[in-house]
């Protein structure tokens, strides 16, 4: 466990009083995680970076609305979630009423045609994630990669805990089937 000399809550209090350097330190602690969360949702580096910048700007502008500094992480990811889905809505073709979907993730997350994770297993994982629904994929990302509790995920995606669990377990059932052969080859 890494002991931090200054806790996030202290940095938040300082940032609320206008200490930009304290906020920059807070960003440095969270930017990589938020960027990877967004990257796995939108599957595009440029979009993920732009969204990350918007997320931290909005978080700074609304920092005083955060009631409990200890709840900073789910609050920050809630902003990130809203930003990502706002992007999906902007890019949705007019008249389309079906479930919002991020960019296609067939094969792998790509930037200009180049694979982001060019290893067989990671390609397979990336492809399998891409075949989930947007909600299922986000739940898997928040639980498996980001390590949030079910209650926190429910807060981030604004859905009941039962719905969150349902999405995750359905997704895992699909992933177990899809990834079992690849995992077996990787282990051998």
């Amino acid at each position, binding site marked *: 466990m890494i002991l931090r000399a200054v806790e996030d809550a202290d940095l938040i*209090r300082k940032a*609320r*009083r*206008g200490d*930009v*350097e304290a*906020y*920059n330190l807070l*960003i*440095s602690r969270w*930017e*990589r*995680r938020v*960027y*990877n969360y967004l*990257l*796995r949702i939108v599957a595009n*580096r440029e979009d993920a*970076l732009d969204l*990350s*910048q*918007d997320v*931290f*700007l*909005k978080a*700074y*502008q609304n920092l*005083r609305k955060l009631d409990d500094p200890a709840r900073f992480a789910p609050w920050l990811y809630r902003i990130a979630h809203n930003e990502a889905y706002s992007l999906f809505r902007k890019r949705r073709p007019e008249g389309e009423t079906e479930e919002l979907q991020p960019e296609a993730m067939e094969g792998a997350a790509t930037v200009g045609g180049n694979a*982001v*994770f060019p*290893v067989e*297993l*990671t390609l*397979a*994982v*990336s492809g399998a*994630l891409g075949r989930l629904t947007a909600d299922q994929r986000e739940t*898997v990302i928040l*639980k*498996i*990669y980001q390590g949030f509790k*079910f209650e926190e995920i429910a807060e981030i995606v604004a859905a009941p805990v039962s719905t969150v*669990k349902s999405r*995750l*377990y359905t997704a*895992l059932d699909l*992933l*177990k089937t899809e*990834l*079992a052969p*690849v*995992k077996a080859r*990787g282990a051998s």
Partner: protein
Amino acid sequence: MSCSPFDLRDYYFKDLAENERRLTEVHVKTCAHCREELERLRGAEAALLALPDEEIPQRIGFVSDPVFQPSAFRRGWDALWGSSARLGFASAAMLSAALVVFSLTRPVPQFIAPAPALTRAGMQAEMQTDFSKRLNDAVAKAVAESETRQARQTRELLAASETRHALETQAMMVRVQEYLDVEKKRMNTLILASNDAASVNKDTR
């Protein structure tokens, strides 16, 4: 279908109460099917975690810009609000003030449109508009104050001039009256002298 007394996936993600977790643990030890199911869950999670995190291509940071900093009033207010010792007093004072203001004004409820999400460009445009508005207001206010000051000075000068003119006229009238009085006395003296001379000539003849 799992034969576990509780959902194996809840057990795997440590989302069971302590007694439920113990019961499931006991069951798993004796049930090969459930152990295989748990193994598949572990395998799926391990495969997912093979997807590595990326480094962010460009670090995010903000410069210390007074525009983005709260005002001195806001900082002071936050400091006061953050002080638990003064929190009670501040809350009571605010509540009292709010009650007084509300009872005196009773504003008509109005719909307030939510503020649109701001981008950096939007913020800059808004700040530019706000700055221009403030500048125009300040110029208009300064011009109005200057005009008011000029008008007041003109009125004061006119009043002083009129007063001085009235005093000078009055003084001149006094001098004219004195001159006329002197002339009148001189004429009377001359008339009396003439009369005296005429009577002396008559007596001599």
